[in-house]
């Protein structure tokens, strides 16, 4: 009997130990590259960290601004419609809601009293000035790779912002997730707190791209799946995950489910503008990443990111190859049997005028549905989210806009139109139900577009001849 207990005990121990080792090995985001690494100070291959050469002689604040964009602090530290960097953005997670905090230099509610050492502790170790632990919604396990100089340049920039008085909102977390002290244990396993080490077997652009992707842009925080402890599982690096109700897609080189079929130029364009013809435009969180962060990077830095992305091992995920041929011009052809006819009716009334029955938009390439990953995702997660939240991006080419239909259409309507769109224009139709859509709404209640009051939408788009202050009443 004792022997059996001993064997079971040993079994449990080995499984637990093996699992711990496996998760531990999954924490290094760059281990896939193999080869040997050196400390930054010992690297002779060229500049990896800091600002690009175009900004080498710029003042510290300008450099800090570039790095703040590169690290994309703004997207999470800004509430919808709120002051930039004043916090209050809600992260809705299975175990509760966490709010981002105010990182303007306000002395009472922001980081105005932070010393350099305190700021570095927050960025690298996830420790607040008062010694409390931050939740890893703050991507300090990624930022721990950032050099002290770069982190302090970001601080220098943040301290030039106008202080905003914005007290932190109270997190709503269930036990045991509301026990911040437990995170110290989590950190022992998942935050090595080590600065970036260049890989001497790789090129300078690769290393620069790795620094930008891992230490600054923290791509993996959305695109890499998480393990049972909610830490990144780099065994499946960049193979896609659902974050805040949106699907961050597989960006490995897999030809079917990843971006293996994209040209380097398309990846470059998608990163730098949030759009590449034939692949559609980014919406939701990736739209923000493009507009708040990636679009600010100089061309060499985006090329470096492309070089790094291309080296990530291909990983297949559950997505079909995208369909790149347009649908038939007539609504009567290309109909998939077994779908709720309501989807087609909604598409005819609300969608066809911009997206066309073929899926190739006569208005803008951003609105073309053919070849778009989200449309070729049989979960229809991002199609439904885009219908609910719309698109409201400010790009270098101008405003990219799609109305948010979330308040005008029911959950069943949105499920029907998402199912229709994926069936007509994508590889495989979705089978969303109204309750799936309700669930998606809950996960992403705080995206800027969903918060935009309806009354704000058309006003900025009124031509002068029919502006409301004129006497002509268009709806008389």
């Amino acid at each position, binding site marked *: 009997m004792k022997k059996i207990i001993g064997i079971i005990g040993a079994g449990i121990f080995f499984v637990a130990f093996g699992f711990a080792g496996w998760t531990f090995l999954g924490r290094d985001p760059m281990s896939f590259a193999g080869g040997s690494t050196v400390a930054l100070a010992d690297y002779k291959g060229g500049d990896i960290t800091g600002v690009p050469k175009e900004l080498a002689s710029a003042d510290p604040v300008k450099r800090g601004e570039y790095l703040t964009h590169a690290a994309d602090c703004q997207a999470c530290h800004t509430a919808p419609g709120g002051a930039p960097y004043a916090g209050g953005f809600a992260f809705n997670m299975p175990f509760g809601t966490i709010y981002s905090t105010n990182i303007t230099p306000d002395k009472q509610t922001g980081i105005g009293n932070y010393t350099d050492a305190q700021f570095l502790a927050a960025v690298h170790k996830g420790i607040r000035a008062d010694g409390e632990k931050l939740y890893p919604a703050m991507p300090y396990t990624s930022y721990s790779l950032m050099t002290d100089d770069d982190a302090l340049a970001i601080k220098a920039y943040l301290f030039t912002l106008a202080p905003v008085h914005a007290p932190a909102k109270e997190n709503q977390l269930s036990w045991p997730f509301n026990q911040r002290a437990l995170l110290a244990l989590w950190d022992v396993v998942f935050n090595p707190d080590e600065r970036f080490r260049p890989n001497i077997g790789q090129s300078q652009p690769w290393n620069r791209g790795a620094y930008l992707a891992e230490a600054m842009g923290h791509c993996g925080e959305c695109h890499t799946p998480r393990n049972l402890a909610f830490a990144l599982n780099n065994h499946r690096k960049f193979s896609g995950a659902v974050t805040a109700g949106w699907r961050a897609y597989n960006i490995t080189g897999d030809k079917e489910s990843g971006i293996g079929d994209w040209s380097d130029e398309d990846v470059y364009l998608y990163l730098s503008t949030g759009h590449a013809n034939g692949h559609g435009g980014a919406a939701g969180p990736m739209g923000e990443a493009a507009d708040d962060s990636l679009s600010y990077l100089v061309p060499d830095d985006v090329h470096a990111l492309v070089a790094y992305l291309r080296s990530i091992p291909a990983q297949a995920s559950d997505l079909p190859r995208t369909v790149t041929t347009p649908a038939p011009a007539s609504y009567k052809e290309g109909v998939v049997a077994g779908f709720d006819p309501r989807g087609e009716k909604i598409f005819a009334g609300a969608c066809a005028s911009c997206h066309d029955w073929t899926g190739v938009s006569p208005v803008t390439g951003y609105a073309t549905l053919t070849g778009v990953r989200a449309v070729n995702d049989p979960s229809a997660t991002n199609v439904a989210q885009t219908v609910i939240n719309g698109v409201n991006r400010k790009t270098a080419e101008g405003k990219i806009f799609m109305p948010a239909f979330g308040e005008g259409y029911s959950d069943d309507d949105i499920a029907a139109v998402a199912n229709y769109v994926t069936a007509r224009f994508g590889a495989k139709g979705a089978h969303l139900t109204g309750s799936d859509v309700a669930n998606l709404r809950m996960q992403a209640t705080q995206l800027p577009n969903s918060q935009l009051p309806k009354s704000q939408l058309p006003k900025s788009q009124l*031509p002068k001849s029919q502006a409301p202050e004129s006497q002509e009443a268009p709806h008389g």
Partner: protein
Amino acid sequence: MLTLTINGQSRQVDAPDDMPLLWVLRDHLNLVGTKYGCGIAQCGVCTVHVGGKPVRSCQLAVGDVGTRAVVTIEGIGNTPNGAKVQQAWMEDTVPQCGYCQAGQIMSATALLDGNPHPDDSDIDAAMAGNLCRCGTYIRIRRAIKNAAAKSA
């Protein structure tokens, strides 16, 4: 300076690339037959033809028009189907208040351009994005069939 082809004429416009075509038509070229409705491509009242396709001009940036020919309600009567639709519209006295009718006529003409003999469901699918608050839909459907029956 942008060069646009509008109703068969070449027009020079000094407007930013991201200005909606509707603004250019109404405010720069004084082509005010095309109306502003919702401003978010959901009512159809601003419909014009761009490269032969019906497009909501409130959402099309003028810089994206390119070399595609633009036809507005002011020019549609010079096209064979446009003339037939306008004739049918008068015979069937389709409009009530008339605000949406420019867009209705543009969408109806585009429908006949691609499908000379549409049935009811074809008409519904093509016209679903053009709202009419007076509810003239029954007369719109009748007039489209009337136009389709006219010999060229």
